[in-house]
């Protein structure tokens, strides 16, 4: 499987008066055409910052981006601002979280989507319009030729997200980054939008990076999963593998805090204790150790003093994790699995 996108040791650092905020600190992953990578983590774990870096959106700010992002063999970080701009929206496109605030309130839907097409294609306005109608049609907006004259506020939430998807896909990008595309939507609409993304991915053979904190979405959509914590990957591997044999306590925490639809309402969710760490002064050693309920199982002071390497776990070479636990499998099977929501387990097995 030839990787189409490879990210190698990506670092995004923001210098501030109080010190350097390491929003992303040495992130590496690969993604093939037509595949989906789910990036999971709490707010502030560096998911969005990392994906913005792929799009080059940190250019012109004071962020320091280093490492390597190879798309189809080209290192995006080595490109000039203008070369990167030409690729933005054309080869890499992004779908944002809140389609209402992400669309300009003063321009019509058609105008905004056509703009995305016209930046990268030297065609007439009417040709662009035809293409916009075609795309709106494709993403399932009824009477597209009329609705494109509407303003964003005249669309429903789901329709707006469909329009955003049409905008992102209008130039046939080979990579689409979807930053929590369903977070702002109703549950019923969420499923439609995810189905649409999968359909379009099949048709266009697009690689998708799906940023989410919803493991249900990941289970349904992703081929690979990358769990992020404090700017680093803490577990990375094939989706099925991660959901059935997670080896990192943070991933366990995410799984345990997912609601269970079939359990009685008196059953309680198990949230991860504590709050995400400050990226300005991350904890020493493993950044998750202050919140980790399993750190006592590691001998000595290892969790507090030493950052674990991202190494292959006990099952497969391509399943890597950052944890000092000697036998995570047993802990997972005995302590975590019995309390998990059955849908997640089923879906992933």
């Amino acid at each position: 499987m030839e990787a189409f996108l490879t990210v190698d040791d990506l670092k995004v650092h923001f210098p501030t008066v109080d010190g350097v905020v390491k929003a992303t600190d040495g992130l590496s992953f690969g993604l093939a055409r037509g595949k989906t990578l789910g990036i999971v983590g709490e707010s502030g774990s560096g998911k969005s910052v990392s994906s913005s870096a792929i799009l080059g959106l940190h250019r012109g700010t004071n962020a320091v981006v280093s490492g390597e992002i190879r798309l189809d063999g080209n290192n995006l970080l080595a490109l000039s601002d203008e070369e990167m701009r030409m690729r933005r929206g054309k080869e890499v496109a992004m779908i944002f979280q809140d389609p209402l605030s992400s669309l300009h309130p003063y321009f019509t839907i058609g105008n905004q989507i056509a703009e995305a097409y016209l930046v990268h294609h030297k065609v007439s306005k009417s040709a662009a319009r035809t293409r916009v109608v075609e795309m709106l049609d494709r993403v399932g907006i009824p009477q597209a030729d009329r609705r494109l004259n509407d303003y964003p506020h005249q669309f429903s939430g789901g329709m707006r997200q469909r329009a955003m998807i049409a905008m992102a896909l209008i130039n046939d990008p080979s990579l689409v980054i979807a930053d929590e595309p369903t977070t702002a939507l109703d549950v019923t609409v969420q499923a439609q939008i995810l189905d649409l993304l999968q359909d379009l991915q099949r048709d266009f053979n697009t690689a998708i990076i799906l940023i989410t904190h919803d493991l249900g979405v990941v289970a349904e959509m992703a081929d690979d999963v990358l769990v992020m914590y404090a700017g680093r990957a803490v577990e990375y591997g094939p989706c099925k593998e991660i959901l059935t044999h997670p080896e990192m306590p943070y991933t366990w925490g995410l799984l345990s805090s997912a609601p269970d639809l079939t359990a009685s309402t008196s059953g309680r969710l198990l949230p991860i204790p504590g709050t995400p760490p400050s990226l300005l002064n991350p904890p020493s050693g493993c950044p998750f150790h202050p919140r980790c309920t399993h750190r006592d199982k590691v001998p000595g002071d290892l969790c507090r003093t030493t950052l674990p390497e991202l190494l292959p776990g006990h099952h497969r070479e391509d399943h890597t994790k950052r944890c000092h636990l000697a036998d995570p499998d047993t802990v997972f099977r005995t302590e975590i699995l019995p309390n998990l929501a059955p849908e997640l387990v089923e879906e992933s097995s």
Partner: protein
Amino acid sequence: MWAYIVRRCAVGLALLLALTLVTFALFFASPVDPARFACGKNCSEQQRDQARKALGYDKPVYEQWGNFVKGVVVGRDFPADPELRAAAPEVVTHCEAPCLGYSHLNARTVNELVKDAAPVSISLAVVALVMWLIGGVLFGILAAVTKGSFMDRGIVGLTLVAYAFPTFFIAVFFLKYLAVKWQVMPYPAYTSIEEGGIAAWMLNLLMPSFTLALVFMAGYVRMTRAFVLESMTEDYIRTARAKGLQGRKVLFKHGLRAALTPLVTMVGLDFAALLAGAIITESVFAYPGLGLLTVQASAAYDLPTIIGVVILAGSFVILANIIVDISYAFIDPRVRLG
């Protein structure tokens, strides 16, 4: 839309009516007797009563107010005392609707006074508006896009200076150095377009308009800068960049479109207030506009003129408000009038 406009206009009229009522009540609550002012210092009790009757001040306030409102609608004749009008028809002055009153001190109707003074104030306001809008928006954008740089700090610093100096100081400063000492500009004296053509009109307006524009410009620079900086952090700006749009298009199309919208409200209200006269600027430059008229009328306790000018100014502001609100329906697609 039309229903909305009609309704707003009706409310505006009611507001104006209330304004006349308040103005009347305020001035008659003051301890000064207008009849004594009209009559002069060495005036016997009897003469004063005569003057009061001739000017109509002997009537109750509500009746005077009624006559005033009637005059605005259908016009009226002066002096206010009908017996005097009948006895001496040669002194009767007719004041056409909308009649704002009669200034016995000037022996002219307020309408005529306003007609003379308004073009001066309007010229001043229009030229100043153009200056402060161009200057304010351009420097505001410049400061926003160079945020934190030497340029930005320089512009923001200069706006502070312009804010800090009072208008009368700047006016006198310009007069002394530009017109008197170095003589790079003529000493400004209002010249209408009919008298001297556009060039002379403009040349004479430059200094007073710029003086007037300066403090507004300072405010507009700061506001434009803030609005642009704010709109450039919006999510839709990120979307525009993610599309691959050129940086200047992101700024000038997406950023400015949102940033400049709130300016419309400010421009409308500031301009309307200025139409009623820039009191300090007109006073220092001796420009015979509505501002100077107001100052002179206040000093002389010329009650009818004061009331007339207050109501004129009020109607400008009310009208500007209606226009701003209606224009929003065209500027912001989310606004539906109803």
